[in-house]
């Protein structure tokens, strides 16, 4: 479980987050949504420690993340996997070397054991036989799966995904969503996804947080989205007339 308490973040005079209180649950796909500029990516980067907050607290379980020393921080980060929006795969390494990188850095396994682990991870993300490709030779969907494989190869307790479906077609997006959701449940990890994709929200959102103007506007399960009275949530999720019609039909309006 991850908890943020009264998190604020400013860049110069621009206050992006104005006091967010949120809990992200273990074994569930937690989703952060919001318009562009709402502060989703900033919140995610604060939680993983890439930015320091202006004020507030972040807890990993009962551990105060912001008060850790370098050694303790490193220990926590070894329990974290992250899928980046653009993949952040190392161009000069093959897919196998990319996935093996965390093992090379932190495990005491032999090369053979590491390669076996990489093969098992590749099988989990359905990329068997693609070990020798370079990231530039892989499609967008494959790159995302490689990113997921690299994020989970050390068997993390926390998985962060920044816009996992950006640049993907709807069918591939569903595959990626299901993969993330299945891994979350299989391994009972805390997964936080930052997305714009409403399909993801309605398919796998078990704990959805809507950010608006630097505040937490709404939080709930995907089943509560249709019946919620929150106008900002409806304006955001059912932004298109088509979706609005579908929603009205679903609730019998």
């Amino acid at each position, binding site marked *: 479980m991850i908890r943020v308490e009264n998190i604020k973040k400013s860049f110069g005079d621009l206050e992006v987050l104005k006091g967010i209180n949120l809990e992200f649950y273990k074994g569930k796909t937690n989703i952060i949504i919001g318009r562009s500029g709402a502060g989703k990516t900033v919140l995610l*980067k604060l939680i993983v420690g890439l930015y320091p907050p202006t004020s507030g607290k972040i807890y990993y379980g009962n551990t105060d993340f912001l008060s850790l020393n370098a050694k303790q921080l490193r220990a926590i980060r070894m329990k974290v996997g992250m899928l980046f929006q653009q993949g952040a795969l190392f161009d000069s390494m093959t897919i196998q070397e990319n996935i093996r990188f965390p093992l090379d850095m932190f495990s005491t396994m032999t090369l053979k054991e590491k390669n076996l682990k990489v093969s098992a991870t590749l099988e989990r993300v359905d990329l068997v036989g693609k070990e020798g490709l370079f990231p530039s030779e892989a499609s967008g969907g494959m790159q995302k799966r490689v990113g997921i494989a690299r994020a989970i190869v050390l068997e993390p307790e926390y998985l962060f995904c920044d816009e996992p479906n950006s640049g993907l077609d709807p069918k591939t997006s569903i595959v990626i969503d299901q993969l993330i959701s299945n891994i979350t449940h299989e391994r009972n990890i805390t997964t936080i996804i930052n997305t714009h994709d409403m399909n993801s929200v309605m398919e796998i959102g078990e704990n959805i947080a809507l950010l608006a103007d630097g505040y937490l506007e709404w939080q709930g399960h995907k089943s509560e989205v249709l019946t919620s009275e929150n106008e900002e949530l409806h304006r955001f999720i059912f932004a298109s007339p088509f979706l609005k019609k579908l929603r009205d039909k679903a609730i019998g309006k």
Partner: protein
Amino acid sequence: MYWKETMRQMNDIGVGSLTIIMLISVFIGAVTAVQFSYQLGSAMVPRYYVGYIVRDITIIELAPTITCLVLAGKVGSNIAAELGGMRQKEHIDAMEIMGVNTASYLILPKVIAALFVVPLLVCLAAFVSIAGGYTATVPTGYFTGPEYIQGLRSFFDPYNVFMMFVKATVFGYILTTVSCYMGYYVTGGSIELGRASTNAVVYSNILILLADYVIAVILTG
């Protein structure tokens, strides 16, 4: 991983720069020999002095300084662009989140590689430069081979070689650390990346020249 990365950097900085350094060194030696033989031609100076001058000016000044100025342009801009690109493509963030000490993993191997490889390149540049002086002047009849060799063997002071290695080590440190700093802390897009790469070369060159003066004052004082 650190060892592998250091070896890769040694290969990139050392082997990757061999051709340009050899080419430049040949011409530096050739031009130095030709111009000094022209300047001293009418003076009451023994002709073998040209060999002596080429040797010392190459060892003390031209090999370390020109080599490192060229390396700042070639290697420095490459380092800044590589690290800046990694920063922009979130590679550095990815490593940070994995718990990798990115400064240590990305910068230290480059600095260590440069501290080993740059003095070797400078040493090689000095030899090639002296050979270039020979090639440009002896076959063309400026003076005879024995005269040039006599000059090379005259008044040799090993301290000058020590000075060359001190300069090479300091310049190698400057060009890698400045370039790494510029690339590692780049923000923004492609324009900022280009600017960081240019700044890496400009600041490295300025600091190398400044250090050249300081070392000269300290070691010859």
